């Protein structure tokens, strides 16, 4: 399938038909996958995993942010047709790494990925999934989760298997999930048997937590590690909760451990930056999209095997495929420029939320990421009402309140957070969710009562 598409494209190019005609042809007669062929000409950048020889696409598909729709029973389900269409396009353009988890998208991500990918030969793509045994510590329960992933993904081996989100809570937390129940030795045996080709972990936590996990390298021989890396987290991670990606990268590079990257775009936050930052980007290169800077930054580091992007819309996918095809790594000077931008961005009082939805569902119904997203978008747009003396204060106040009530239904607003703290342990960013929600709630209360 992939070959067919590529050869057809090459053929058309060779014959010298322009992009316009190509687009028309694609729209007119191609069944799927090549809807926007006109957008791309070059080859997807591939990185080689030295241990296996895997040729992995530098753009990986994060299966965490697909669109959900309501079925006839009002239940939220993944829009499978949409997923198939996206995966078709991705496969046709050389994206061959798909990262999912049993927890993603209310537990539906693996199955949706399985349905979409199983339409292609198994050797044409790499599957990464995780042992997301949150709230499940027993050996039986954990193994059940492991075996279920095979079923969901319609496969008999995983290319990349990750211990999901470890680091926080240090070694005791790690032991509780993987050692005390003897799962770690089980997984090592599975790797031996070839059902797990590469075993690694995804990391969230402080520097000391990471060091502790690295100390286990001799014991477990981590094949790869997944870290949160982008130009903001490179040097501006909150040291009370997270670790600078620069440090993580260096430590892994030293040990020659391949790195898979999550949150290269911070859940879309780096695609929508404050005006002064985007102005600098556009001045430097009027044609480059805001998001492409973030992706190129990540891709410019050679130890990175793949950068995962949770592409919800076809437009995201097309744009990212463009960025990673005929990939141009950043030079020293450009990396320096990104460092400057990060410094500017760090000035904005954003909440570190990447809309990963791990905190959801809140048992009391609060739309935690929705509230944070709204808040961040107001900050990014520079539309935060501060006090009555501010220029256009009334307009900003009205804007804040109306956009808030439109974005979040009243039952799910911040004033319904009762401070039960159940969300805290799920947040990979260690955001003090209840405190932040209550801070926003108090601020909104002042806005409403007009006592700011």
């Amino acid at each position, binding site marked *: 399938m992939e070959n067919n598409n590529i050869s057809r494209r090459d053929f058309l190019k060779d014959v010298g038909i322009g992009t316009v005609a190509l687009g028309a042809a694609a729209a007119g007669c191609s069944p799927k996958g090549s809807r926007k062929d006109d957008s791309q000409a070059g080859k997807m950048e591939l990185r080689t995993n030295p241990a296996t020889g895997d040729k992995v696409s530098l753009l990986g598909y994060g299966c965490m942010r697909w669109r959900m729709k309501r079925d006839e029973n009002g239940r939220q389900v993944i829009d499978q047709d949409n997923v198939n269409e996206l995966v078709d396009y991705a496969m046709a353009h050389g994206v061959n790494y798909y990262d999912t988890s049993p927890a993603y998208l209310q537990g539906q991500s693996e199955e949706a990925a399985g349905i979409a990918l199983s339409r292609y030969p198994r050797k044409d793509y790499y599957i990464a999934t995780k042992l997301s045994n*949150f709230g499940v510590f027993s050996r039986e*329960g954990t193994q059940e989760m492991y075996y279920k992933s095979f079923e969901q993904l319609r496969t008999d081996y995983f290319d990349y298997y990750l211990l999901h989100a470890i680091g926080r809570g240090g070694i005791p937390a790690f032991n509780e999930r993987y050692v005390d129940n003897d799962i770690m030795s089980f997984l090592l045996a599975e790797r031996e048997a070839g059902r797990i080709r590469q075993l690694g972990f995804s990391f969230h936590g402080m520097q000391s937590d990471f060091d502790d996990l690295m100390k286990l390298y001799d014991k477990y021989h981590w094949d790869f590690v997944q870290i949160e890396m982008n130009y903001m987290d490179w040097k501006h991670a909150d040291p009370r909760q997270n670790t600078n990606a620069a440090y993580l990268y260096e430590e892994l590079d030293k040990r020659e451990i391949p790195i898979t990257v999550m949150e290269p775009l911070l859940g879309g936050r780096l695609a929508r930056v404050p005006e002064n930052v985007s102005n600098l980007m556009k001045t430097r290169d009027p044609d480059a999209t805001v998001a492409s800077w973030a992706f190129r930054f990540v891709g410019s580091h050679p130890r990175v095997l793949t950068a995962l992007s949770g592409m919800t819309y076809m437009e995201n996918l097309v744009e990212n495929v463009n960025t990673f095809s005929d990939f141009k790594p950043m030079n020293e000077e450009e990396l320096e420029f990104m460092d400057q931008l990060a410094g500017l961005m760090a000035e904005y009082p954003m909440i570190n939320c990447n809309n990963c939805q791990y905190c959801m569902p809140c048992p009391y119904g609060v739309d935690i990421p929705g509230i944070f997203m709204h808040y961040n978008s107001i900050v990014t747009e520079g539309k935060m009402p501060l006090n009555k003396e501010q220029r256009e204060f009334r307009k900003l106040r009205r804007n804040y309140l109306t956009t808030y009530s439109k974005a979040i239904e009243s039952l799910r607003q911040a004033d319904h957070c*009762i401070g039960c703290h159940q969300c805290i342990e799920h947040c990979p960013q260690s955001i003090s969710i209840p405190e932040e929600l209550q801070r926003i709630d108090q601020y909104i209360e002042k806005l409403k009562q007009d006592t700011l």
Partner: protein
Amino acid sequence: MLRKIRIILAAVFFIAITVMFLDPTGSIYKCFGWTAKLQFLPAVLGLNLIVIIITVIAALLFGRVYCSVICPLGVLQDIISNISGRRKGKKNRFTSSKEIKWLRYGVWALFVAAIIFGVQAFVSILAPYSAYGRIINAMKHPALPTVIVAAVTLVVIAVLAWRNGRTYCNTICPVGTTLSFFSRFAMFRPVIDTEKCKDCKVCEKRCKASCIDIAEHKVDYTRCVACFNCIDNCKFDAVHYRFAWGKCGKKTVAAPAADDTADTGRRAFMTGAALAIGAAALKAQEVPKRDGGFAEILPKVNPERTELLTPFGSKSVKDFYSRCTACQLCVSQCPNNVLKPSTDLMHFMQPYMTYTDGYCRPECTICSQVCPAGAIEPLTKEEKTSFHIGVAVLDRRLCVAHTDHIDCGNCARHCPTGAITMVTHHEGLPLIPTVDEAKCIGCGACENLCPARPVSAIYVNGLSVHRQD
């Protein structure tokens, strides 16, 4: 000419009132609020003497112009009747008829009795402006009972208007009958010039009130709504609106009375149900964590309050329900979904106050600004916090401190008057809220934001007479 002036004025009132009801912004009432304040029955029940006097004087001077211009239900009937008259051959479709006295005065007498004895449902159903308000509000906030009542009203009105013009106004409408007592003596009225009249009967056939009798050359001024159709349509210039002084009339006054007590029936059952649901949810098991989505949140049910809540500015439950004419303008304007139409027979279609979907926010005084009946008297934000409309009470068994062992305090955090303090109840257990009755104003922030569902652990009982500091 007179007819055109009447139509323009009627359009202004009709559009203003309709737009105000439908307004989603909550600000149009500032421009158009006066159109509601001029409504006669709300003014009578609110003892708004200025409006009563203006209306009566207008009726004594010009006849029932009120019915043709100010009353939105009257104008609605004109619109329907007009459309009916555009059908082929239906232009001159009315015939002179006699007043149906027994029905007209019978309904009026019952209506006055209903006001005196507090049979609000009867009053609300017949009140013309309120009936119109309910029709519009049912479109804005559709709920089954309100839609049924509004639909029935609309169908009855539409059928009567389609067939016979102003039948409702001249046989049933208590406001029309009341005004007829004055309009019969109106100074200015349409008079038929017998010398010029050729007995062509066009005026009679065009009279939607069916009040012109050409055989006798008489007009029944108790039923004439001063629409001036007869004048504009007379080819012989035989009908004139002119000075014709009569005698003085009488006046009606309403004495309000109502009784409000709520029984405490369902409460025990609902509490039990809530406890059972809470206990079931509490049982924790080894369930894999799934990311995303929303937890299902049970809708809140209105608790059985020992006394009803009525809005800030209504002074007492009795005052509120005896003055309210159930126009539902406050319901349509309430931005916090606190006011809803009641289906209780004692207060049928009048609003009741509930904190299931929101609470009475401290900065909002819209209902008090729009109420045309004085059932909710105008307040400023500052005055609002000096009133006490209810007192919060706690059902400890439902509090999440008790059911889930969670340190919640959401009620205390959101109480605008700081009336709630969290205290230790049992050593080692989370704090529970306590209410300072003197400080609590009854706004319902605690009840609405209480995580206990479907019945809030903390809820507000109304005060039969509101207290002011």
